[in-house]
Protein backbone atom coordinates (compact mmCIF):
# COMPACT_ATOMS: atom_id res chain seq x y z
CA UNK A 1 0.00 0.00 0.00
CA UNK A 2 1.46 3.33 -0.98
CA UNK A 3 1.56 6.24 1.43
CA UNK A 4 -1.40 8.02 -0.11
CA UNK A 5 -3.49 4.85 -0.23
CA UNK A 6 -2.67 4.29 3.42
CA UNK A 7 -3.68 7.88 4.14
CA UNK A 8 -6.99 7.45 2.35
CA UNK A 9 -7.84 4.30 4.20
CA UNK A 10 -7.11 6.04 7.49
CA UNK A 11 -9.35 8.94 6.58
CA UNK A 12 -12.11 6.55 5.61
CA UNK A 13 -11.86 4.55 8.81
CA UNK A 14 -11.67 7.76 10.81
CA UNK A 15 -14.81 9.07 9.15
CA UNK A 16 -16.69 5.90 9.98
CA UNK A 17 -15.63 6.07 13.61
CA UNK A 18 -16.49 9.77 13.80
CA UNK A 19 -19.90 9.17 12.25
CA UNK A 20 -20.58 6.46 14.80
CA UNK A 21 -19.43 8.75 17.58
CA UNK A 22 -21.66 11.59 16.37
CA UNK A 23 -24.59 9.20 16.40
CA UNK A 24 -23.52 8.39 19.91
CA UNK A 25 -23.59 12.08 20.78
CA UNK A 26 -27.13 12.26 19.44
CA UNK A 27 -27.89 9.26 21.61
CA UNK A 28 -26.48 11.06 24.61
CA UNK A 29 -28.74 13.99 23.84
CA UNK A 30 -31.73 11.66 23.91
CA UNK A 31 -30.59 10.12 27.15
CA UNK A 32 -29.99 13.53 28.65
CA UNK A 33 -33.45 14.71 27.76
CA UNK A 34 -35.50 11.66 28.47
CA UNK A 35 -33.62 9.32 30.70
CA UNK A 36 -31.85 11.44 33.28
CA UNK A 37 -33.70 13.20 36.06
CA UNK A 38 -33.87 16.97 36.18
CA UNK A 39 -31.45 18.31 38.71
CA UNK A 40 -33.19 20.00 41.61
CA UNK A 41 -31.33 23.27 41.87
CA UNK A 42 -30.13 23.86 38.36
CA UNK A 43 -33.06 22.67 36.32
CA UNK A 44 -32.95 21.67 32.71
CA UNK A 45 -29.94 23.79 31.90
CA UNK A 46 -27.81 21.45 33.96
CA UNK A 47 -28.12 18.81 31.26
CA UNK A 48 -25.45 20.44 29.14
CA UNK A 49 -23.15 18.92 31.73
CA UNK A 50 -23.29 15.64 29.84
CA UNK A 51 -21.60 17.28 26.90
CA UNK A 52 -19.56 19.84 28.75
CA UNK A 53 -17.74 17.52 31.12
CA UNK A 54 -16.69 14.85 28.58
CA UNK A 55 -15.49 17.61 26.25
CA UNK A 56 -13.22 18.76 29.02
CA UNK A 57 -12.03 15.22 29.63
CA UNK A 58 -11.31 14.75 25.94
CA UNK A 59 -9.39 18.00 25.77
CA UNK A 60 -7.32 16.89 28.72
CA UNK A 61 -6.79 13.47 27.19
CA UNK A 62 -5.77 15.06 23.90
CA UNK A 63 -3.29 17.26 25.67
CA UNK A 64 -1.85 14.50 27.82
CA UNK A 65 -1.31 12.42 24.73
CA UNK A 66 0.43 15.33 23.03
CA UNK A 67 2.79 15.50 26.00
CA UNK A 68 3.44 11.78 26.27
CA UNK A 69 3.84 11.27 22.54
CA UNK A 70 6.18 14.27 22.43
CA UNK A 71 8.40 12.67 25.02
CA UNK A 72 8.38 9.47 22.99
CA UNK A 73 9.28 11.42 19.88
CA UNK A 74 12.34 12.95 21.50
CA UNK A 75 13.43 9.50 22.53
CA UNK A 76 12.58 7.52 19.40
CA UNK A 77 12.68 10.16 16.66
CA UNK A 78 9.81 8.61 14.72
CA UNK A 79 8.00 11.18 12.53
CA UNK A 80 4.73 9.29 12.96
CA UNK A 81 4.75 10.26 16.61
CA UNK A 82 5.10 13.90 15.65
CA UNK A 83 2.23 13.60 13.18
CA UNK A 84 0.05 12.04 15.87
CA UNK A 85 0.90 14.75 18.38
CA UNK A 86 -0.03 17.46 15.88
CA UNK A 87 -3.32 15.73 15.07
CA UNK A 88 -4.12 15.32 18.72
CA UNK A 89 -3.37 18.99 19.36
CA UNK A 90 -5.79 20.16 16.68
CA UNK A 91 -8.54 17.87 17.88
CA UNK A 92 -7.86 18.92 21.45
CA UNK A 93 -8.12 22.56 20.45
CA UNK A 94 -11.56 21.85 18.99
CA UNK A 95 -12.73 20.05 22.11
CA UNK A 96 -11.51 22.77 24.43
CA UNK A 97 -13.14 25.42 22.24
CA UNK A 98 -16.43 23.51 22.50
CA UNK A 99 -16.05 23.25 26.23
CA UNK A 100 -15.24 26.93 26.61
CA UNK A 101 -18.32 27.93 24.65
CA UNK A 102 -20.75 25.52 26.29
CA UNK A 103 -19.41 26.44 29.71
CA UNK A 104 -20.55 30.04 29.73
CA UNK A 105 -23.83 29.12 28.01
CA UNK A 106 -24.53 26.85 30.91
CA UNK A 107 -23.10 29.10 33.58
CA UNK A 108 -25.21 32.10 32.75
CA UNK A 109 -28.65 30.72 33.62
CA UNK A 110 -27.37 28.80 36.61
CA UNK A 111 -24.82 31.03 38.25
CA UNK A 112 -25.80 34.32 36.72
CA UNK A 113 -22.36 34.98 35.29
CA UNK A 114 -20.80 34.01 31.99
CA UNK A 115 -17.54 32.92 33.47
CA UNK A 116 -16.25 31.54 36.72
CA UNK A 117 -12.73 30.57 37.62
CA UNK A 118 -13.64 27.11 38.73
CA UNK A 119 -11.13 24.31 38.36
CA UNK A 120 -12.45 22.76 35.19
CA UNK A 121 -13.06 25.91 33.19
CA UNK A 122 -9.75 27.39 34.22
CA UNK A 123 -7.82 24.30 33.32
CA UNK A 124 -9.53 24.02 29.97
CA UNK A 125 -8.80 27.66 29.28
CA UNK A 126 -5.13 26.98 29.88
CA UNK A 127 -5.23 23.92 27.68
CA UNK A 128 -6.77 26.09 25.00
CA UNK A 129 -3.92 28.58 25.20
CA UNK A 130 -1.33 25.84 25.29
CA UNK A 131 -2.84 24.24 22.19
CA UNK A 132 -2.79 27.59 20.45
CA UNK A 133 0.84 28.15 21.38
CA UNK A 134 1.75 24.66 20.19
CA UNK A 135 0.00 25.09 16.85
CA UNK A 136 1.27 28.65 16.37
CA UNK A 137 4.84 27.47 16.87
CA UNK A 138 4.34 24.65 14.39
CA UNK A 139 2.94 27.08 11.85
CA UNK A 140 5.97 29.34 12.25
CA UNK A 141 8.58 26.67 11.57
CA UNK A 142 9.34 25.31 8.14
CA UNK A 143 11.93 22.65 8.68
CA UNK A 144 10.06 19.46 9.63
CA UNK A 145 12.78 18.21 11.93
CA UNK A 146 13.00 21.47 13.83
CA UNK A 147 9.22 21.75 13.96
CA UNK A 148 8.88 18.27 15.40
CA UNK A 149 11.59 18.79 18.01
CA UNK A 150 10.36 22.20 19.17
CA UNK A 151 6.73 21.03 19.32
CA UNK A 152 7.83 18.09 21.39
CA UNK A 153 9.55 20.39 23.87
CA UNK A 154 6.41 22.49 24.28
CA UNK A 155 4.30 19.37 24.55
CA UNK A 156 6.38 18.01 27.40
CA UNK A 157 6.68 21.30 29.25
CA UNK A 158 2.97 21.95 28.82
CA UNK A 159 2.06 18.57 30.23
CA UNK A 160 4.07 19.33 33.33
CA UNK A 161 2.43 22.72 33.65
CA UNK A 162 -1.02 21.18 34.05
CA UNK A 163 -0.56 19.89 37.61
CA UNK A 164 0.79 23.31 38.61
CA UNK A 165 -2.26 25.06 37.18
CA UNK A 166 -4.42 22.67 39.09
CA UNK A 167 -2.48 23.26 42.27
CA UNK A 168 -2.64 27.03 41.82
CA UNK A 169 -6.39 27.00 41.32
CA UNK A 170 -6.84 24.74 44.31
CA UNK A 171 -4.72 26.96 46.56
CA UNK A 172 -6.48 30.02 45.26
CA UNK A 173 -9.90 28.63 46.02
CA UNK A 174 -9.15 27.24 49.47
CA UNK A 175 -7.67 30.55 50.53
CA UNK A 176 -10.29 32.64 48.74
CA UNK A 177 -13.69 31.19 49.43
CA UNK A 178 -15.71 31.89 46.31
CA UNK A 179 -19.45 32.47 46.38
CA UNK A 180 -20.85 28.99 46.75
CA UNK A 181 -20.70 27.39 43.36
CA UNK A 182 -22.28 24.05 42.91
CA UNK A 183 -19.91 21.65 41.22
CA UNK A 184 -22.08 19.01 39.69
CA UNK A 185 -19.40 16.37 39.55
CA UNK A 186 -19.87 15.21 43.09
CA UNK A 187 -19.30 11.52 43.70
CA UNK A 188 -22.80 10.80 44.86
CA UNK A 189 -24.66 11.18 41.60
CA UNK A 190 -27.91 9.39 41.03
CA UNK A 191 -27.24 6.26 38.92
CA UNK A 192 -28.97 7.57 35.79
CA UNK A 193 -26.77 10.65 35.79
CA UNK A 194 -23.63 8.66 36.39
CA UNK A 195 -24.45 6.16 33.68
CA UNK A 196 -25.24 8.86 31.15
CA UNK A 197 -22.08 10.68 32.04
CA UNK A 198 -19.99 7.58 31.56
CA UNK A 199 -21.69 6.74 28.29
CA UNK A 200 -21.07 10.27 27.14
CA UNK A 201 -17.44 9.94 28.17
CA UNK A 202 -17.09 6.81 26.08
CA UNK A 203 -18.80 8.48 23.13
CA UNK A 204 -16.47 11.45 23.31
CA UNK A 205 -13.50 9.14 23.52
CA UNK A 206 -14.69 7.50 20.35
CA UNK A 207 -15.14 10.93 18.80
CA UNK A 208 -11.58 11.80 19.75
CA UNK A 209 -10.25 8.62 18.19
CA UNK A 210 -12.25 9.19 15.02
CA UNK A 211 -11.22 12.80 14.60
CA UNK A 212 -7.55 12.13 15.31
CA UNK A 213 -7.57 9.29 12.80
CA UNK A 214 -9.02 11.56 10.15
CA UNK A 215 -6.58 14.34 10.93
CA UNK A 216 -3.62 11.97 10.95
CA UNK A 217 -4.73 10.52 7.64
CA UNK A 218 -5.07 13.99 6.15
CA UNK A 219 -1.58 14.92 7.31
CA UNK A 220 -0.20 11.74 5.82
CA UNK A 221 -2.02 12.42 2.55
CA UNK A 222 -0.63 15.95 2.47
CA UNK A 223 2.92 14.75 2.89
CA UNK A 224 2.53 11.95 0.39
CA UNK A 225 0.96 14.34 -2.10
CA UNK A 226 3.85 16.80 -1.80
CA UNK A 227 6.47 14.29 -2.72
CA UNK A 228 4.83 11.67 -4.84
CA UNK A 229 4.32 8.23 -3.40
CA UNK A 230 7.97 7.57 -2.63
CA UNK A 231 7.98 6.69 1.05
Amino acid at each position, binding site marked *: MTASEGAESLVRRGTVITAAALLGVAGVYVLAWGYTPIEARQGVAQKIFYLHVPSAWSALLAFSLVGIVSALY*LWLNDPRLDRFAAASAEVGLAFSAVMLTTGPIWAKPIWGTWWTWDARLTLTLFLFFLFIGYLALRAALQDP*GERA*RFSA*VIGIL*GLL*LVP*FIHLSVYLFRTLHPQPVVLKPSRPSLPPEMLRTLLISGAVFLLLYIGLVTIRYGLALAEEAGEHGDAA
Partner: protein
Amino acid sequence: MPEWLRLALVIAGKDVRAELRSRTAILSAVVFAALVLVVFNFARDPTALAAVDLAPSVLWVTFALAAMLALNRAFTVEKENAALDGLLLAPVPREALFAGKLLANLAFVGTVEAVTLPLFVLFFNVDLGTALPGIIGVTALATVGFVTVGTIFSAMAVRTRFAELMLPVLLLPFMVPPLIGAVQVTARLLAGRPLSEMMGWLRLLALYDLVFVILCSLVFTAVVDE
Protein backbone atom coordinates in the same frame (compact mmCIF):
# COMPACT_ATOMS: atom_id res chain seq x y z
CA MET B 1 34.24 23.64 40.78
CA PRO B 2 32.50 21.12 38.54
CA GLU B 3 33.29 21.65 34.89
CA TRP B 4 29.71 22.30 33.85
CA LEU B 5 29.40 25.08 36.41
CA ARG B 6 32.64 26.66 35.28
CA LEU B 7 31.42 26.61 31.69
CA ALA B 8 28.03 28.00 32.70
CA LEU B 9 29.71 30.89 34.50
CA VAL B 10 31.99 31.54 31.53
CA ILE B 11 29.01 31.72 29.20
CA ALA B 12 26.95 33.82 31.59
CA GLY B 13 29.93 36.10 32.11
CA LYS B 14 30.29 36.62 28.39
CA ASP B 15 26.61 37.53 28.02
CA VAL B 16 26.72 39.94 30.93
CA ARG B 17 29.87 41.60 29.66
CA ALA B 18 28.41 41.97 26.17
CA GLU B 19 25.18 43.40 27.53
CA LEU B 20 27.00 45.87 29.75
CA ARG B 21 28.72 47.15 26.61
CA SER B 22 25.62 47.64 24.54
CA ARG B 23 23.05 48.03 27.31
CA THR B 24 20.23 47.79 24.79
CA ALA B 25 18.05 45.16 26.40
CA ILE B 26 18.35 46.31 29.96
CA LEU B 27 17.70 49.94 29.16
CA SER B 28 14.63 49.18 27.06
CA ALA B 29 13.27 46.88 29.71
CA VAL B 30 13.79 49.41 32.49
CA VAL B 31 12.22 52.24 30.51
CA PHE B 32 9.36 49.94 29.61
CA ALA B 33 8.81 49.01 33.24
CA ALA B 34 8.76 52.64 34.29
CA LEU B 35 6.21 53.45 31.59
CA VAL B 36 4.00 50.54 32.61
CA LEU B 37 4.01 51.82 36.18
CA VAL B 38 3.01 55.26 34.99
CA VAL B 39 0.18 53.83 32.90
CA PHE B 40 -1.07 51.81 35.86
CA ASN B 41 -1.09 54.90 37.97
CA PHE B 42 -3.23 56.87 35.58
CA ALA B 43 -5.38 53.93 34.67
CA ARG B 44 -6.87 53.50 38.09
CA ASP B 45 -9.41 55.50 39.99
CA PRO B 46 -7.63 56.58 43.18
CA THR B 47 -10.83 56.81 45.14
CA ALA B 48 -12.05 53.35 44.27
CA LEU B 49 -9.26 51.13 45.51
CA ALA B 50 -6.47 51.72 47.94
CA ALA B 51 -3.06 51.55 46.32
CA VAL B 52 -1.96 48.82 48.64
CA ASP B 53 -4.69 46.47 47.40
CA LEU B 54 -3.62 46.82 43.82
CA ALA B 55 0.07 47.05 44.55
CA PRO B 56 1.12 43.39 44.33
CA SER B 57 -0.68 42.85 41.02
CA VAL B 58 0.73 46.03 39.52
CA LEU B 59 4.23 45.15 40.60
CA TRP B 60 4.11 41.64 39.23
CA VAL B 61 2.46 42.44 35.94
CA THR B 62 5.18 45.02 35.43
CA PHE B 63 7.90 42.53 36.30
CA ALA B 64 6.42 39.93 33.98
CA LEU B 65 6.12 42.22 30.97
CA ALA B 66 9.57 43.71 31.44
CA ALA B 67 11.05 40.24 31.82
CA MET B 68 9.66 39.21 28.46
CA LEU B 69 11.41 42.12 26.80
CA ALA B 70 14.69 41.27 28.45
CA LEU B 71 14.43 37.56 27.70
CA ASN B 72 14.50 37.91 23.98
CA ARG B 73 17.99 39.24 24.17
CA ALA B 74 19.98 36.21 25.17
CA PHE B 75 19.37 34.30 22.01
CA THR B 76 18.92 37.18 19.61
CA VAL B 77 22.55 38.03 20.08
CA GLU B 78 23.60 34.50 19.20
CA LYS B 79 21.42 34.56 16.16
CA GLU B 80 22.78 37.89 14.96
CA ASN B 81 26.28 36.58 14.89
CA ALA B 82 25.34 33.00 14.18
CA ALA B 83 27.53 32.50 17.16
CA LEU B 84 25.53 29.71 18.69
CA ASP B 85 27.53 27.36 16.47
CA GLY B 86 30.63 28.48 18.28
CA LEU B 87 29.10 27.42 21.57
CA LEU B 88 27.85 24.14 20.17
CA LEU B 89 31.19 23.25 18.58
CA ALA B 90 33.01 23.51 21.86
CA PRO B 91 33.05 20.65 24.37
CA VAL B 92 30.22 22.27 26.32
CA PRO B 93 27.48 19.96 27.62
CA ARG B 94 24.12 21.37 26.60
CA GLU B 95 22.95 21.48 30.22
CA ALA B 96 25.86 23.79 30.98
CA LEU B 97 24.94 25.98 28.01
CA PHE B 98 21.39 26.23 29.31
CA ALA B 99 22.60 27.00 32.82
CA GLY B 100 24.83 29.75 31.46
CA LYS B 101 22.04 31.39 29.50
CA LEU B 102 19.72 31.02 32.47
CA LEU B 103 22.18 32.73 34.80
CA ALA B 104 22.69 35.57 32.34
CA ASN B 105 18.94 36.03 31.95
CA LEU B 106 18.50 35.99 35.72
CA ALA B 107 21.11 38.71 35.96
CA PHE B 108 19.31 40.84 33.36
CA VAL B 109 15.81 40.34 34.70
CA GLY B 110 17.04 40.71 38.26
CA THR B 111 18.62 44.04 37.39
CA VAL B 112 15.40 45.26 35.80
CA GLU B 113 13.48 44.20 38.89
CA ALA B 114 15.97 45.88 41.19
CA VAL B 115 15.50 49.17 39.37
CA THR B 116 11.73 48.80 39.05
CA LEU B 117 11.06 48.09 42.71
CA PRO B 118 12.21 51.50 44.02
CA LEU B 119 10.27 53.19 41.20
CA PHE B 120 7.24 51.25 42.26
CA VAL B 121 7.66 52.28 45.88
CA LEU B 122 8.00 55.85 44.73
CA PHE B 123 5.03 56.01 42.37
CA PHE B 124 2.61 54.05 44.49
CA ASN B 125 3.64 55.28 47.89
CA VAL B 126 3.91 51.79 49.26
CA ASP B 127 5.63 51.28 52.57
CA LEU B 128 7.75 48.18 52.30
CA GLY B 129 9.18 48.39 55.77
CA THR B 130 9.90 44.99 57.24
CA ALA B 131 8.46 43.27 54.20
CA LEU B 132 11.51 44.03 52.05
CA PRO B 133 13.58 40.89 52.70
CA GLY B 134 10.50 38.75 52.13
CA ILE B 135 9.72 40.56 48.91
CA ILE B 136 13.24 40.07 47.67
CA GLY B 137 12.98 36.40 48.53
CA VAL B 138 9.71 35.78 46.77
CA THR B 139 10.88 37.82 43.79
CA ALA B 140 13.91 35.59 43.45
CA LEU B 141 11.81 32.46 43.72
CA ALA B 142 9.21 33.49 41.16
CA THR B 143 11.76 35.00 38.78
CA VAL B 144 13.72 31.76 38.58
CA GLY B 145 10.47 30.05 37.57
CA PHE B 146 9.50 32.16 34.64
CA VAL B 147 13.01 32.98 33.47
CA THR B 148 13.80 29.26 33.24
CA VAL B 149 10.91 28.57 30.91
CA GLY B 150 11.45 31.92 29.20
CA THR B 151 15.06 31.02 28.40
CA ILE B 152 14.20 27.83 26.62
CA PHE B 153 11.26 29.41 24.80
CA SER B 154 13.34 32.36 23.63
CA ALA B 155 15.82 29.87 22.17
CA MET B 156 12.95 28.46 20.12
CA ALA B 157 11.22 31.73 19.33
CA VAL B 158 14.40 33.23 17.90
CA ARG B 159 14.25 30.71 15.05
CA THR B 160 10.78 31.89 14.00
CA ARG B 161 9.94 34.96 12.03
CA PHE B 162 7.94 36.78 14.67
CA ALA B 163 10.10 36.07 17.65
CA GLU B 164 8.84 39.01 19.74
CA LEU B 165 5.27 37.84 19.30
CA MET B 166 5.93 34.12 19.61
CA LEU B 167 7.65 34.35 22.97
CA PRO B 168 4.70 35.87 24.88
CA VAL B 169 2.24 33.50 23.22
CA LEU B 170 4.27 30.53 24.36
CA LEU B 171 5.40 31.85 27.69
CA LEU B 172 2.35 33.48 29.27
CA PRO B 173 0.55 30.29 30.31
CA PHE B 174 3.75 29.20 32.02
CA MET B 175 4.12 32.44 33.86
CA VAL B 176 0.77 32.09 35.58
CA PRO B 177 1.63 29.75 38.48
CA PRO B 178 4.76 31.71 39.52
CA LEU B 179 2.85 34.94 39.06
CA ILE B 180 -0.13 33.88 41.14
CA GLY B 181 2.17 32.65 43.86
CA ALA B 182 4.24 35.81 43.80
CA VAL B 183 1.22 38.11 43.98
CA GLN B 184 -0.34 36.13 46.81
CA VAL B 185 2.83 36.11 48.86
CA THR B 186 3.61 39.77 48.14
CA ALA B 187 0.12 40.80 49.19
CA ARG B 188 0.43 38.93 52.45
CA LEU B 189 3.89 40.31 53.11
CA LEU B 190 2.68 43.85 52.58
CA ALA B 191 -0.23 43.21 54.92
CA GLY B 192 2.14 41.86 57.55
CA ARG B 193 0.57 38.41 57.64
CA PRO B 194 2.42 35.56 59.36
CA LEU B 195 4.62 33.21 57.37
CA SER B 196 2.28 30.27 57.91
CA GLU B 197 -0.27 31.85 55.61
CA MET B 198 2.15 31.84 52.73
CA MET B 199 3.68 28.41 53.07
CA GLY B 200 1.44 26.78 50.50
CA TRP B 201 2.32 29.32 47.86
CA LEU B 202 6.01 29.31 48.69
CA ARG B 203 6.07 25.56 48.35
CA LEU B 204 4.34 25.87 44.99
CA LEU B 205 6.95 28.35 43.81
CA ALA B 206 9.84 26.24 44.99
CA LEU B 207 8.44 23.07 43.45
CA TYR B 208 7.79 24.86 40.17
CA ASP B 209 11.37 26.09 40.09
CA LEU B 210 12.79 22.67 40.82
CA VAL B 211 10.69 20.84 38.25
CA PHE B 212 11.21 23.29 35.45
CA VAL B 213 14.90 23.96 35.94
CA ILE B 214 15.59 20.24 35.74
CA LEU B 215 13.20 19.59 32.89
CA CYS B 216 14.34 22.53 30.78
CA SER B 217 18.01 21.62 31.16
CA LEU B 218 17.22 18.13 29.97
CA VAL B 219 15.21 19.10 26.90
CA PHE B 220 17.42 22.04 25.93
CA THR B 221 19.50 19.85 23.68
CA ALA B 222 16.42 19.17 21.55
CA VAL B 223 16.21 22.89 20.89
CA VAL B 224 19.80 23.71 20.01
CA ASP B 225 21.10 20.53 18.44
CA GLU B 226 19.98 19.53 14.99
